[in-house]
């Protein structure tokens, strides 16, 4: 383990670590633009200049590997002058249109100018080289004037997606990035280009002019789009989610997030949400309080007893699933979750970057808690035979299956927890309003069997409640109240009851999650291709 001294601080690092990485890991600030933790080193921006003793010239920290006994100065007069000059070069042709730039507030140029620059520009605004502005590249807006030519986007397109749709064109002062012949960017990872761009050259079209970033409050969460379980930030203002951003987790998604995942926030703040409970009577739907609706469910389950069936949803958190299973076991009903067979797709990659075919975030959690018990077909057959008197659905998946319609019609009592309104809900007898992923705390288990935590970001609409609270409400009406009253306590029960989860603690999951023993068959070809 080589030891070095950076700004008088003695640091021991893993062999092969660069000075920049070592400095950043130890809280020593250094400016950088072209370096990115998940992209190959390029060293073109020259802003991370450092002075290394016994080396005649200044070095770039991002490409200098720590050697034993190295003494580095990042703040010496010589180094600071070099850093300042490099930054001044980057700003020569920059239009300084921060007031209209969406990057303002999370811009490397702004931040580093405040730290290193603070000079008057030597180039008048009129004399700057003008380049293409407001170029629509589909999901991305390009402003070539703001670009600092760090090539992060080029390296992303080269190394991560392999699409190579962006390139440098022209020479000298007039160099700019462009797609060939103004083509749009068409792959499903374009949002990452806006994320990797340290300045406002590549910006999200979806987020354009929507919000200044300093108004947003970030909440750590997990993407519910597929079984990958990418770590994300939910950026919210006054209870309305404005965007999703990737959160770095080297073991899951690195720094990336797919565009379908980024677009999921649009499901949250919409008018078609189920915001109150309702019961169908002789005269059609009647709105009731959640408590009254839970009374109805409890009554139906009491009279049905073992002649009941339960269908869990892989959209639910581990806590949701656990309480739902407890409810099913308390009356001895049939239980399953495999509507559409997600368990077969949980480890099947959709592309060679991030996405999985299974579009549920917690299929692995369902498998770990052994929710696939009686078989969906067997439950439907029992419904058709008339031996199911009450059907409780944790999600509306089954209601959407055309082949199940006749079977569901035979069941006298169908309760469905739902987040969004839809025509399929008319097949239910009782509709319970459920919170969505951004509105609950809990855990998902991803395809690798990594248990990851999500936090509440926004309040749910109307009377909506987390699914586990709804199930717990029915349990207490059946006289079998749960001993846990918070997601953390329910997770404690999950950890005790689920094989492989022993000893897990909700708080200790922190925000990077805890990887459990990978499930059998995890090392298939698709996984290895990704690694």
């Amino acid at each position: 383990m080589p030891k070095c001294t950076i700004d008088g601080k003695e640091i021991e690092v893993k062999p092969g670590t660069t000075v920049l990485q070592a400095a950043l890991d130890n809280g020593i600030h250094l400016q950088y633009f072209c370096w990115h933790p998940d992209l190959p080193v390029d060293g073109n921006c020259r802003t991370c200049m450092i002075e290394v003793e016994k080396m005649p010239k200044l070095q770039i920290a991002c490409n200098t590997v720590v050697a034993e006994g190295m003494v580095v100065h990042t703040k010496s007069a010589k180094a600071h002058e070099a850093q300042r000059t490099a930054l001044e070069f980057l700003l020569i042709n920059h239009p300084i249109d921060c007031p209209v730039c969406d990057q303002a507030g999370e811009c490397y140029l702004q931040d580093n100018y405040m730290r290193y620059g603070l000079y008057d520009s030597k180039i008048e605004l009129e004399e700057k080289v003008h380049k293409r502005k407001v170029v629509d590249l589909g999901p991305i807006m390009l402003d070539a004037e703001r670009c600092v030519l760090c090539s992060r986007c080029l390296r992303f397109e080269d190394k991560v997606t392999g699409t190579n749709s962006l390139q440098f064109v022209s020479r000298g002062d007039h160099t700019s990035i462009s797609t060939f012949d103004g083509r749009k960017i068409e792959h499903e990872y374009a949002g990452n280009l806006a994320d990797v761009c340290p300045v406002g050259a590549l910006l999200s079209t979806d987020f354009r002019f929507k919000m200044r970033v300093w108004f947003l409050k970030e909440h750590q969460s997990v993407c519910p789009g597929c079984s990958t379980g990418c770590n994300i930030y939910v950026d919210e203002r006054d209870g309305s989610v404005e965007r999703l951003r990737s959160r770095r987790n080297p073991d899951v998604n690195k720094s990336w997030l797919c565009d379908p995942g980024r677009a999921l926030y649009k499901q949250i703040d919409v008018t078609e949400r189920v915001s109150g409970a309702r019961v169908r009577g002789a005269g059609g739907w009647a709105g009731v309080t959640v408590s009254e609706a839970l009374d109805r469910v409890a009554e139906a389950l009491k009279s049905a007893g073992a002649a009941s069936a339960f269908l869990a949803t892989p959209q639910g958190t581990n806590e949701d699933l656990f309480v739902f299973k407890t409810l099913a076991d308390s009356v001895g009903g049939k239980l399953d979750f495999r509507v559409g067979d997600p368990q077969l797709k949980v480890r099947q990659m959709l592309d060679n970057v991030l996405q999985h075919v299974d579009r549920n975030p917690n299929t692995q959690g369902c498998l770990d808690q052994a929710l696939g018990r009686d078989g969906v077909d067997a439950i439907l057959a029992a419904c058709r035979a008339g031996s199911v008197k009450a059907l409780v659905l944790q999600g509306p998946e089954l209601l959407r299956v055309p082949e199940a319609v006749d079977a569901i019609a035979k069941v006298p009592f169908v309760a469905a927890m739902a987040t969004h309104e839809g025509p399929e809900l008319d097949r239910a007898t009782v509709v319970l309003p459920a919170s969505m992923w951004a509105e609950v705390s809990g855990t998902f288990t991803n395809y690798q069997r990594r248990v990851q935590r999500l936090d509440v970001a926004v309040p749910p609409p109307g009377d909506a409640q987390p699914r586990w609270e709804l199930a717990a409400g029915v349990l207490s009406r059946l006289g079998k109240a749960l001993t846990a009253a918070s997601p953390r306590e329910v997770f404690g029960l999950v950890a005790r009851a689920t094989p492989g989860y022993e000893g897990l603690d909700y708080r200790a999951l922190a925000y990077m999650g805890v990887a459990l023993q990978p499930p059998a068959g995890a090392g298939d070809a698709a996984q290895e291709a990704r690694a």
Partner: protein
Amino acid sequence: MATRVVTVDRNQKPGVLPILRGLQITLANFLRSLFLRQASTVSYPEQKRPVSSRYRGIHILTEREDGTPKCVACFMCATVCPAECIYIESGERPEKTIEKYPTRFEIDLLRCVYCGFCVDACPEEAIIMSRENDLVGTTRAELIIDRDRLMARGKVVEHGPGYRPQEHDVRRPVRIAALERLKSEHGIVPGMPAPKTPRG
């Protein structure tokens, strides 16, 4: 501070003279306004007291040469506003050099504390203040004024612009619609209203 001892003559005889002496200033003012018409009060609202040229009254949104708002919806004013009374929604302008403009720009004048921070924060001199200080409305809603009313406020004519500290820093000239109209239609260039108040 040294203590000053005042001796009051408790044995003074009551009478008219001490009363008149006590009313000396009041009487002087009374006689002056009665015979010389030199009152200290003004007949508001017909008469108004002059206010400073840096007075912070109701806001004005300034315009470009073509009559569109100078504002680029950067949200600096809304960010700095301690009363959180500014509401902005931004949209896309066709000019690629400007890009952004406010589709909505509303100030809740009842919430505003007239601190002038919005004017200080503005990088474009798009928001300045006027000297208008009489705020009258019959509902709360009509005192939340929108972008177009902020841009063309007829009353500015009467009062003139107030606080605009960056006037000499910003290169492009600022147009205020109402002032322009007054100049073209009536040939009047309003400055500070001439002090007509007869103060003693």
